[in-house]
């Protein structure tokens, strides 16, 4: 091979190699650009969605704070009224009667209420009062109460309904003596008295008075 041809061949191979490298660069870089454009489009959608979220959630904090303030005022009012009218001990007992275990937390605006020993509210108020209170807070009455035992057993409603009334209404003889079993197969056999069924004894004639 002449030197000129050798140089031409080597130069041609070099050009081919550089051309292949440039082609690879172009192909992959264009592909990456396409992918980056897709990513940019997706990020535009994300930014639009996040912008809507920010816009819609902007007043939430203020509104929820306002609602909480209103509810706090209501709680203060009701707690104050309950404590004022029923007294601290009975108020704690009434709340604990409706929501077992709530007395441990106490009232929000009366920190000392947490240390008050809750009386058994059934001894302070009649069961009817407690029932009415529960009706106002937890109707329907037959539904299970997640805060404690159900007021009524929905499966044995007839028996549970009796418990709604004061104890004096449901008292009944608990252990009456059973009626005696009679007959030839009775467990207790009594001897037959001879005088039963016998002719009546004749009384002696009374002496005449005359």
């Amino acid at each position, binding site marked *: 091979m002449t030197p000129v041809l050798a140089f031409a061949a080597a130069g041609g191979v070099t050009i081919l190699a550089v051309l292949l490298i440039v082609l690879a660069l172009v192909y992959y870089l264009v592909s990456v650009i396409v992918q980056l454009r897709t990513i940019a489009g997706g990020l535009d959608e994300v930014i639009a969605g996040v912008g809507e979220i920010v816009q819609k959630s902007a007043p*939430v904090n203020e*509104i929820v704070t306002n609602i909480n303030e209103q509810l706090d005022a209501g709680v203060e009012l009701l707690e104050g009224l309950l404590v004022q009218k029923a007294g601290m001990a009975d108020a704690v007992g009434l709340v604990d009667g409706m929501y077992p275990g709530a007395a441990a937390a106490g009232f929000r605006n009366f920190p000392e209420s947490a240390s008050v020993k809750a009386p058994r509210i059934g001894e302070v108020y009649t069961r009817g009062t407690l029932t009415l209170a529960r009706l106002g807070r937890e109707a329907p009455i037959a539904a299970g109460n997640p805060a404690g035992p159900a007021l009524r057993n929905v499966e044995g409603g007839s028996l549970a309904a009796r418990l709604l009334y004061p104890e004096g209404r449901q008292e009944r003889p608990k252990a009456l003596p059973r009626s005696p079993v009679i007959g030839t197969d009775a467990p207790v056999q009594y001897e037959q008295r001879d005088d039963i069924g016998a002719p009546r004894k004749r009384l002696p004639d009374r002496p005449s008075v005359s």
Partner: protein
Amino acid sequence: MILWWIGDAVLLLVVLPVVVILLRGVLAAAKGIVPSVQEIAKVAAAGSKDLDAAALLLTTQQQVADTVAGVANYGGSLDVILDDAS
């Protein structure tokens, strides 16, 4: 002359594969980001749609205010009707 051929061999056997491998890695990474971005866009759209009900908080706020006002009225009446505990 020999060095030139060696240079050509290096270009074809080393540089070109290395360039291709590196660019394929970049392309694969870029392709991997696309589904994630699309999922994020869907979630953002869904989150924005979920917050459509946030406007109802204004109604809730008004109703809470009315309810508390009603409770306050009942409380005032009870305060008059019932005697204090002590």
